[in-house]
């Protein structure tokens, strides 16, 4: 377990605005609640998160830091994140191995990096910079991709491992993104898992995708697909149990659907732990 995540691995859900009231009223048993950091930079949304924090561990998941960009790291953005981190005292602070801005223009999209040594060194140095600024470790997540940013020099799993090793941070492995990229780029998702050192893995994400033509698109707008549950089982077998998040961002369903997915993830973790203990 990572520092700050003591005890057994559990399952959390992403909390989006329409579910706030219901979460606070029902207080379902969850290992943690994940929110997008940027959605809580403002005073009112920040205060709503304070109420959630009173009952739950919180994971702050950033989507706007643009860690892989060639632009200077956004100091104003980091300052807002820093003050949120100090107030919430989250269990995890995570971001993405991606870029979203260039020449001062933000596209607010998790764009893929080329799998080159130059890009790995660059994003690792920026992760270190962000970790120094926040005074704590970041987790960084592998993103889904629909095209490559030019020729690479290594596989995606070698790239994310290189980024983690160089920056000293650990990985948030999104199992759905691995499945999506395996389909879109024609590699074996099991090779990806085999290529990652278990010591680097700190958290799992599970989300839904949809098919658009020959591509799978990571929409976070559906239940976790059967192939992804199967890959999650493989990941648990290889890496052991880790805190796991159910992500759902578009076409948000009733809270009970998210909780149902969370229970399925809990059962998968429990059956792996039972097998490991047997």
């Amino acid at each position: 377990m990572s520092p700050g995540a003591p005890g057994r691995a559990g399952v959390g859900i992403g909390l989006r605005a329409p579910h706030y009231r219901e979460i606070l009223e029902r207080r379902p048993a969850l290992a943690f609640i994940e929110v997008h950091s940027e959605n809580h930079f403002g005073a009112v949304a920040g205060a709503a998160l304070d109420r959630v924090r009173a009952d739950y561990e919180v994971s702050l998941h950033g989507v706007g830091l643009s860690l892989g960009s060639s632009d200077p790291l956004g100091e104003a953005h980091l300052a807002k994140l820093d003050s949120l981190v100090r107030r919430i005292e989250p269990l995890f602070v995570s971001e993405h191995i991606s870029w979203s801005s260039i020449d001062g223009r933000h596209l607010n999209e998790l764009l893929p990096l080329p799998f080159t040594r130059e890009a790995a060194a660059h994003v690792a140095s920026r992760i270190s910079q962000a970790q120094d600024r926040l005074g704590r470790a970041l987790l960084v997540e592998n993103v889904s991709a629909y095209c490559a940013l030019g020729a690479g020099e290594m596989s995606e799993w070698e790239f994310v491992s290189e980024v983690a090793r160089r920056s000293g941070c650990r990985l948030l492995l999104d199992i759905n993104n691995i499945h999506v990229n395996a389909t879109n780029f024609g590699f074996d998702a099991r090779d990806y898992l085999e290529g990652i050192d278990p010591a680097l893995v700190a958290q799992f994400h599970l989300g839904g995708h949809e098919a658009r033509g020959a591509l799978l698109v990571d929409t976070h707008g559906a239940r976790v697909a059967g192939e992804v549950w199967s890959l999650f089982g493989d990941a648990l077998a290889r890496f052991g149990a880790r805190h796991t998040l159910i992500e759902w961002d578009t076409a948000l369903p009733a809270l009970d659907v998210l909780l149902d997915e969370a229970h399925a993830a809990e059962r998968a973790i429990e059956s792996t732990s039972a097998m490991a203990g047997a």
Partner: protein
Amino acid sequence: MSTLATRQREFARLLLDEARPADAGVAVYRASVAANFSAALAATYPVVRRLVGEAFFAEAARRFVLSHAWASGDLNEYGAGFPAFLAAYPHASALEYLPDVARLEWACHECESSPDAAGFDFEALARIEPLRYAALRLVLHPSVRLIESAYAVAAIHEANAPGRDGVPDRLEGPDFVLVRRVDGRAIASCVAEREWRLLGRIAGGDTLEAALGAEAMGETLAAWVSQGIVAGFTAPPCAR
């Protein structure tokens, strides 16, 4: 120039130039970028969206997104330039009040994301010599916004809140609108023109003496303090 920067710059150009042919993967990113920005605009401008309809709003949002570079990783701050864009958007020229409705919606958006303020410090006020009151400067709560329009924007805004039928209870402006935060939500209400102008002078940093002039508005000020609209004051240093 690093290879990474070159690749990122080239990819961003390809994404933003819809006229350039691109493969299915680039098309996914183009659609996603447009959808993310449009969703941010739709969340901030629900009344404009309702007034012009889904299809019109989507097209206006698409053109705004492509023509306005955005410099932050926080989409919650996106869309400040949308009212000015609508004012210059030829397809919206028949809806003369639309840019002002948009300005009011942006004011509400800013109001809801503004920081909080400590309560009014009555004890500090009690320590001020009454003779020095004239030199005080009142401070409005950070969430307060002031919008003026020749149109009945407050009525249009209220009539298009969720669950309302869209029919404003009056059609004539001008409207002098005070936007403030109550229980975390922005409330837009019309105030008398002289009150609105006084709030404007306070916001502009006038001393009480300059702000009030010859007007007797002590009760109004007291009400604003009790409602948290006036959140504090600054006093000039004591002359010794």
